[in-house]
């Protein structure tokens, strides 16, 4: 498979598990998309998903912890991109954090992260995240937006075995992420968004696509 076939297969497989996949030309476009997703989220009332339901008192309290302004967490952006993102967030009234995510367990609206690799066979993102903030951004955010370079898409998990082994050569936490968090534990009915993100967006930066 060549690069565009891998990109096409990744897109198809990720969409099959309800991920939103978009091709973007540049990182700036990706940042703008993340802010857009966050801004549009206002329309739906699922902030800190679950808080609208009747809950026990301790769980209700945690909902109170959520700052009701909208929040983007972006722990592993390059300095330049983080600054661009901040300048997009400010006028939209969106808060931006890069560290200390554990204090926001009540819910972060959008977690924006970079992905290291992807596996097209299954539509899977590979994110090397020993950094705890990066890990949390992919876990406690309600929408996870991941940015992926088309050149980092591999056909098969076997193709990245060496790269994984290199990650694992020291203390490490690596995540394979395929679609949003899901369960079918009640009557086998598929439901998205149990303990992790309710929604996954993958933005593929494909330098070749603009040619």
């Amino acid at each position, binding site marked *: 498979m060549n690069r565009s076939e891998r990109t096409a297969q990744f897109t198809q*497989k990720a969409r099959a*598990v309800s991920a939103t996949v978009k091709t973007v030309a540049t990182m700036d476009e990706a940042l703008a998309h993340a802010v857009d997703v966050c801004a549009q989220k206002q329309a739906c009332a699922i902030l*800190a*998903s*679950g*808080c609208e*339901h*009747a*809950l*026990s008192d*301790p*769980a209700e309290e*945690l*909902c109170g912890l959520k700052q009701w302004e909208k929040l983007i967490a972006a722990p592993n952006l390059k300095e330049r991109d983080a600054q661009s993102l901040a300048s997009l967030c400010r006028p939209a009234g969106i808060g931006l954090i890069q560290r*200390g995510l*554990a204090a926001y*367990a*009540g819910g972060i609206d959008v977690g924006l992260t970079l992905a290291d690799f992807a596996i097209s*066979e*299954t*539509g*899977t993102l590979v994110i090397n995240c*020993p950094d*705890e903030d990066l*890990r*949390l951004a*992919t*876990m*406690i955010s309600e929408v996870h937006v991941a940015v992926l370079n088309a050149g980092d898409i591999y056909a098969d*998990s076997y193709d990245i*075995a060496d790269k*994984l*082994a290199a*990650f*694992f*050569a*020291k*203390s*490490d*936490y*690596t*995540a*394979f992420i*395929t*679609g949003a*968090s*899901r*369960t*079918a*534990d*009640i*009557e*086998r*009915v598929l*439901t998205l*968004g*149990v*303990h*992790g*993100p309710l929604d996954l967006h993958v933005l593929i930066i494909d330098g070749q696509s603009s040619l």
Partner: protein
Amino acid sequence: MQTADNLGQYRKQLAEALENTFQRKALDNFAVAYRDGRDANFAGIDRDHLIESIGTAKDAAMARLDELFEEFCQKAGAAGAKVHFAGSDVEANEIISQIAAENNCSRIVKSKSMTAEETLLNHFLENRGYEVIETDLGEWIIQLRHEGPSHMVMPAIHLSRNEVSRLFSEVTGKQQDPDIEKLVKVARRELRQRFVSADMGISGANFAIAETGTLGIVSNEGNVRLVTTMPRVHVALVGIDKLIPTVSEALQVLKGLPRNATGQAITSYVTWITGANPSAASGSGRKIMHIVFLDNGRSALAKDPVFSQALRCVRCGACANVCPIYRLVGGHAYGHIYIGAIGLILTYFFHGRDKDKNLIENCLNCQACKQVCVAGIDLPRLIREVHTMVEHGGKKPVLSSLAGFVLKRRPLFHALLRSGRYAQKPVTGNTAYMRHLPQMFFRDHGFKDLPALAKKPFRDQWDPAPFSPARPEYRVALFSGCLQDFVYPEQLLSGLQLLAGGRIEVVFVRQQGCCGLPLYMLGEHEAAADLAAWNIGNMDPGDYDYILTFCASCGSHMKENYPHLLAKHPGAGVRARQFAEKVIDFSSFVMRMGLGEDQEARPEKTRAAYHAPCHLCRGMGVRQPPRDLLERAGYEYVAHGEEETCCGLGGTYSFKFPEISATILDKKLSAVAETRADILVTDCPGCVMQLRGGAKKQKRPFAVLHMAEAIAGKKP
């Protein structure tokens, strides 16, 4: 969980499960959906090759567990994890409790782990005053109900949304709607607070990669990631059978596990953890990371020549998904902690004979599990082997030793069968069915009519003349099997008509005995091996081109089990293998000889449904020939969804568990009725007995025929 003291109590538990209409419907829908989706799940993948490589990789790993454990310890230790080895379940629990105490933990969040279920870890920790919260949605639900899982992958499959909403109403103290989407969100919110306040997380693991000291954990909900990230302490409890040498081999297993378990190409998350990672909640800034390996008999199991393959299991749950018994009664009645076919085996080794003694009886030997296993475990054979140990570990039931005595003595057995014809008169009223069953022997067996012994066994009607050409193309030994010899001789006689005429010499060796399957099923493996040797001795594979049988059960037993039974006897194993190679079923033989074609042009064809005997479609791997033969013989073959589901007979099974046998049979007959078939055809006299008896009792509008009868155009 198994608490029954005896088979009677266990049957009561099964009867209650059969009454559970919600569970029945849920499991039935699941069984059909799983079956229909499985091929698509493996689209684009060479499934057989994958199964073989997973089996090979796991076997190789189990052969050097000690080495892999050493390597893992070294690598994980260097990355900051503390690795423990627990010989027994209680030792594992003690170690984990100790870790909690040393680190002043009181609130524990847990992700799903069958190994922790095995050691009853939650009870142990709760008794020591720790709060343990399961965070997998299904596990949390059953924890709140104080139950064990009823499926290894879908622990709460037996519960309805109404039951869950009642439960959540209690837990939250607020009224909850029975709306699944909303219930999931309530769980998300309730449990998020538990993650925040917990000081210790306990997980299991699907892989322990030796070359890097890495744990791999699959999950869909994302709770595993929170359990292993938010609290300052992480303890992983891992069976040592999860050790695997390399990252590549773990990725290989990962290709099969989710596909076979839930039909996903991969789970939403796969989490790979090596050593102690950064943790803001921990004082040192690093996670306090412990890995507890559980042995509990596994390393001894790994060295066992027969049972080591049980350690290939990747806990996908598929053997339950396809089991016709699980489909009816669910996991609480079909397992102790481990569920399904693998549960019948592991319960004996991990939880003891007493917990397994009733369970192990509850198998039809239909082989559906063997076919679906992603690690290629020969589950039916291991179940039979455990059965033998269970039988011989306690007092041997009278039936089994008596059967061994009789069946091994051919003249005595045949004499008993002959005299049985006179003894049965009062119950048959001289018809072909037993009219009044002696109740003391066949209690609860009123769901089907049982056939009477034939007036004249096949061996007294056999005339070799039409089957002794001067220059035959093929020389064939006929293995009659007891059921066709003494109960259904007409099946043999009608089928043989096709073979008369010159090309084929058929030899019927009078000294042949029972194939031995009933003894094998009763756990009498030595007696079964004696019979195998006897039959091979009387029908030398060197003398014949084929050993033809009209009975799929005899056929698959001779083909599959003879080589195993005689493997340890010098020389006999080779002969058994040669013998097995020549065993052929009726439909395949007729197709191969180009016989059975319908010569007449019929304006309207008879609609023929087919029942694939377990021992034919899975046991002997014969699938297409019978269907082709029906069409060649001029029938309109009408397919149905339950064709390859067991008929519920399972030899003596239907006498031990009549309620389950009857329910499976009913499901089958209903599926056939929906095809509006005129006849139901099959290739095994055992299946004919079950299906014909049931169809007659239920007054179904179709006749049940053996393939030989159908092809010869003869009505029963």
